[in-house]
């Protein structure tokens, strides 16, 4: 079994998320020709056959791109997001919908990430007061990145709203400037929005993590077993990007500076440097970009979770001194280390 899948690997059953997307936008495009353009998919294959095609993350990104182009309205991503976890698309989704509390739901999202949110990976941690949740790109689609952030943020917000029966006091951070269609954010995401932050994040008071939604039922256990079985049938359980991120993260956490090098990471993945470079190119990214992103995430983590000082963070992330850390952060996000904390 392979350690990772790429953006071209067949992964997502087309009768799950893709079919829900087609349902949502069929009123715009009854034949689905526009929606399926350059996805190499045919409507008849998806809905008629006993063996529906399994699509790659790359194809799913194309489909979402087609949908946003077709409708050409700012609420497209929000409509997709609202239905993302709240529709019946397989056992993993059933496990998520029947989770006993938010903490287990977040763990479920991580465990069954390729089945539940194949385009983005979820990371979370909590300090004494708050839980911080991050959606990290797993598809290499720069053009649609903002849309994907919108989709997954709305997906989690509306999932939680449904589970809690009310809107919990979220604080949501975006690493881009306030968009023109801010009213959509107000309505679908909430009032406490922060733009131009270092990193996209969602924050919720810690007590909400363990508020009991329901008891763990027997059917929940059954669904979990089914989901595990489905997961084990996938080509791999982690994307190449996630895998590289994990290796870098381990390197940063153990302070092993060899992991700052592409070669070491390629070795850990048991492929040549050239192959790794080529794979990353498919994701429109490079090793340096991934390293930068991982350092940024770790910096936020160390600041909020471990409460480290700026110089301790700089040292831990493998920078020579405070000023090179400062420069690097400024180049990457346009902000200073002192502004890194999420207010």
């Amino acid at each position, binding site marked *: 079994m392979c350690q990772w899948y790429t953006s071209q690997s067949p992964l997502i059953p087309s009768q799950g998320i893709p079919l829900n997307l087609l349902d*949502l936008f069929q009123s*715009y495009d009854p034949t689905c020709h526009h929606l399926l353009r350059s996805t190499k998919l045919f409507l008849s294959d998806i809905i008629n056959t006993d063996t529906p095609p399994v699509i790659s993350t790359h194809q799913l990104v194309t489909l979402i791109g087609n949908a946003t182009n077709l*409708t050409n*309205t*700012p*609420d497209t991503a*929000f409509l997709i997001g*609202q*239905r993302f976890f*709240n529709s019946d698309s397989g056992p993993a989704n059933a496990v998520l919908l029947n989770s006993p509390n938010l903490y287990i739901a977040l763990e479920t999202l991580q465990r069954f990430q390729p089945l539940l949110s194949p385009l983005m990976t979820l990371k979370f941690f909590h300090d004494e007061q708050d839980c911080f949740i991050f959606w990290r790109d797993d598809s290499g689609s720069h053009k649609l990145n903002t849309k994907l952030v919108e989709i997954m943020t709305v997906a989690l917000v*509306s999932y939680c*709203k*449904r589970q809690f029966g009310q809107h919990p006091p979220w604080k949501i951070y975006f690493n881009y400037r306030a968009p*023109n*269609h*801010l*009213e*959509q954010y*107000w*309505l*679908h995401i909430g*009032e406490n929005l922060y733009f131009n932050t270092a990193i996209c994040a969602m924050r919720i008071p810690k007590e909400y993590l363990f508020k009991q939604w329901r008891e763990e039922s027997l059917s929940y256990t059954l669904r979990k077993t089914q989901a595990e079985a489905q997961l084990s049938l996938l080509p791999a359980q982690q994307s190449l990007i996630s895998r590289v991120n994990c290796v870098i993260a381990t390197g940063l956490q153990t302070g092993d500076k060899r992991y700052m090098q592409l070669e070491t990471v390629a070795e850990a993945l048991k492929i040549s440097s050239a192959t790794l470079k080529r794979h990353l190119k498919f994701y429109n990214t490079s090793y340096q970009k991934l390293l930068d992103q991982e350092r940024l995430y770790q910096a936020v983590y160390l600041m909020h979770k471990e409460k480290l000082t700026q110089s301790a963070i700089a040292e831990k992330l493998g920078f020579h001194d405070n000023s090179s850390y400062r420069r690097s952060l400024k180049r990457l996000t346009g902000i200073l280390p002192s502004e890194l904390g999420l207010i």
Partner: protein
Amino acid sequence: MPNFIRLHITKLVFILLSANTTLLIFLAAGDVKALSVWSGADIFAEGGAGLLTLVWLYLILKSRPSGRITNLLTLGLGLMFVAWWADTLDEFIALPDAITWDHWLESGSMSLGLVLLTYGLYHWHHEQLAISQQRQKQERLVREHRYFDHLTPLAGAQYLKDQIDSDRKQSRQYSSSLIALDLDNFDAVNQTYGHAEGDRVLQAVSQIILLNIRNQDLLCRLAGDRFVVLLPHTGESQAKIFADEITNSLFHYAYRSYTHGEKISISATSAVIMAHQESSEQLLSRLQLAIAKAKTPLARRA
């Protein structure tokens, strides 16, 4: 496309038949010209004009429901097409000099076609005025179809922002008010009855609100289940009365679901603010704060 043919089948058959008859008459009366005397420029100009007439005809039929005005426009354009067609046939078929009816066919059908087209356009103009009158509360004086909402017959947020900004530029002492209306528990409707039913509720609600506002007011769907009414030259207290009237009428409205006809209760929360000298973004974010405050249950307001 099949729908398009079914609606206008008689007219289309009539035009095809007259074109075909003209061709047959020409062939019966005259002789086909030799290739050397064909005039490329004439064929291009006359045939091209005929083709363009067909394109206009297609666009008009495609964009209009069937009816008297559509019939007039079709007949007018159809006759114009026949005239161009006869003119083009002239280039391929030489008629004996003794025959004069071909001039009558060309000029006669062209003039008659133009008269009918003009008559049709005149009535179209009146029809459009009537439609604009009906749409007054949804678009006021500017039409920009790109900003129309795809779900309700209303304009979206961008159109509202443009209208607020242009109003502000026009008058110094600007005294407008805005009402925001947000449906209560709309998520529950979507969850219980499905998103398609939720969409129908939104369409119904937009009609109810339209009935409750004045002719000079503008209703837009801001996002999701949130509507905004722009009330020009209206004070805040007056706007509050309007807002209460709208929420009351929504509360008393008995919406029945599409599939089983159950009653779905609808209620809305409203918030009213008065516009000061500020940009549409600032104004809308103030409105957002107001509606967020109105939506928070009293117990949680500290």
